[in-house]
């Protein structure tokens, strides 16, 4: 699902600045996901966050299907 912002967020809004999909907006003390359906799950918000405050999960239909071999 679109990014989740944890308590480490310093509200610098770098993620809002760079999100390629224009999905994020400045919210109250942290970013808000304004257009959740349009998230590309590209990870740019997570990559550029200076505070390690972003986690991104994938919706079920994007999760890799795997098999434990070892």
């Amino acid at each position, binding site marked *: 699902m679109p990014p989740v912002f944890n308590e480490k967020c310093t509200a610098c809004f770098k993620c809002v600045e760079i999100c*390629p*999909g224009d999905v994020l907006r400045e919210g109250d003390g942290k970013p808000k996901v304004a257009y959740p359906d349009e998230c590309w799950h590209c990870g740019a918000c997570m990559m550029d966050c200076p505070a390690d405050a972003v986690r991104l999960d994938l919706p079920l239909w994007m999760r*890799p299907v795997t098999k434990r071999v070892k």
Partner: protein
Amino acid sequence: MTKTIKTDVLVIGGGLSGCMAAINAADHGAKVAIMEKSHTERSGAAGTGNDHFWFWDPEIHHRRGWTIPDMVRDISFDGEYGKTKGGLMDQELLEIVAEGTKEAVDNLESWGIQFRYDEIYPWNLQYEAPEGEKRFRIVPQFQSEWDTLNYDGRDIKRRLTEQCLKRGVEIYNRVSGTGLLIVDGKVVGATGVNMRTGEFHVFKAKAVVMATGMDQMRLFRAQSGDWFNSQSPPYITGDGEAMALRAGAEVFILQAGKSRNAGFQYFRNLSRSSGTATTCYPAGRFVNSEGEVMIRHPAVREPLRKRREEVERSIAEGKTPFYLDLTDASEEEIRYVEWSYGHEGLCWVILEIMKDLGLDFRKDAFELELEPTGKLSGGFLALYIDTDCHTNLPGLYACSPVQFAGEVAAPTYVVLGWRSGEKAAEYAQEAAEPTLDAKQVESEERRVTAPLNAEDGHPWQEVNKEINNIMEEYKGYVAGWNLPREDAEVSRAGLENCIAQLEKLKAAEMKAEDPHELVRCNEVMNLIDIGIMMVKAALEPEQHERGIWFLGRQVEGEPEFRKTPIVIKYPSKGDA
């Protein structure tokens, strides 16, 4: 609310090619502005990085007996990859690209992107370098020669943005280009709208470079049913092509493609980078459900084409699905894969998510999607340029998308971007001060902002879905050209009906709740214009099949691919 900006060269789209164009135009003395829909630091197909780069190095490759024409022939015809291309690639442009790659690497290196390393590995090309000098990590990718660099390109867009700003290039982020301005047949600027503020922008420019990217995303139905689960950015919706079409530019069109290789695609569910096919060098093995190896590694040494019998036997014996299995690789190989994967666009985040999900290349095999033979893909439309990157419209240059030279990916756009910047700056130097046509600007503003001002109308998603439905019909009919005569008539009638449906959709009113949605509405309007053009081209005579592509109707034998594009003027009366 209108903002007017005056510049010498306007670049529309600040992706890889657009940033290169802007930098070089500035280096040639021009005042430059970039209009970018998202944000140049992370926008476009290379937004979260690139990890490989096709190149020709006079030192390395010449010594190995490979010339530029050899490289171009290999990638277009002779090599494993070339064989699937049916000679469609533009040879002249590709030679220019190959020739420019080493300079591009040198430039990118000087801007802080690491291409050379103290350590190279046994699976990299072993070549002589002066004592103590770092070396490139060169691998064979799809071609016969070792001609591809693995490198750390994760922040390539940030470095390019820095170089633009250093040269005084004005970057207008979040401003989406909507139309070209033409006076006396010359391109004199463009308009755009800010997707956060709604402010309408008018750029007055002596020359314009179109660099809005290679795709018409969301024109066809998404493979996974989710438009935003895509390899290329789902926000690249053919805006540049539509703007150029409306201005009367010549375009290059490929109709639907048909897969022949039954190739392995992405990880199942995840329309991500081609990482499975490329990045997992040197250790990626494709196995069937019994763990039997189909392909030991996916690069050129063992092309799928040659192993297809084995894949087909596995399917017949029910030994499916197929997996990417690295579990037998050495730790050193896995680390290399992770290093490379971490720089490939969209893949760094997969490594992060794998941690959260407890997945590990050392332990887990990843299910792959197997593309069925004969599967139809959507068509492709691009601007048509000469070797100076000039379109047929005076003042309009383009570097992306352009006629089929793009299969070597980033190098094409880096080099053609660079070239178009130089040529546009030279043109701007000679060009007179442009004057705008106020009426044209006004009517363009009305057209573009209509969905925001509409009382009522369809949301963009609704119209986009209907475009997908119509284009699915189109795909079927284009493939139908292969059928006997009577069916060809059915296809013709079907295609004509697709045009009628798209025209009707074009007249439907849309409603945007905010400036962000306004840009999505404009994307959808552009997709309709592109769809109409693609279907009309399918109705033109003299079309045929090359490589994996239909260029419309198949004719007897295999005619030479002619470089002449199908020219249809906008608005089209249906005449060629």
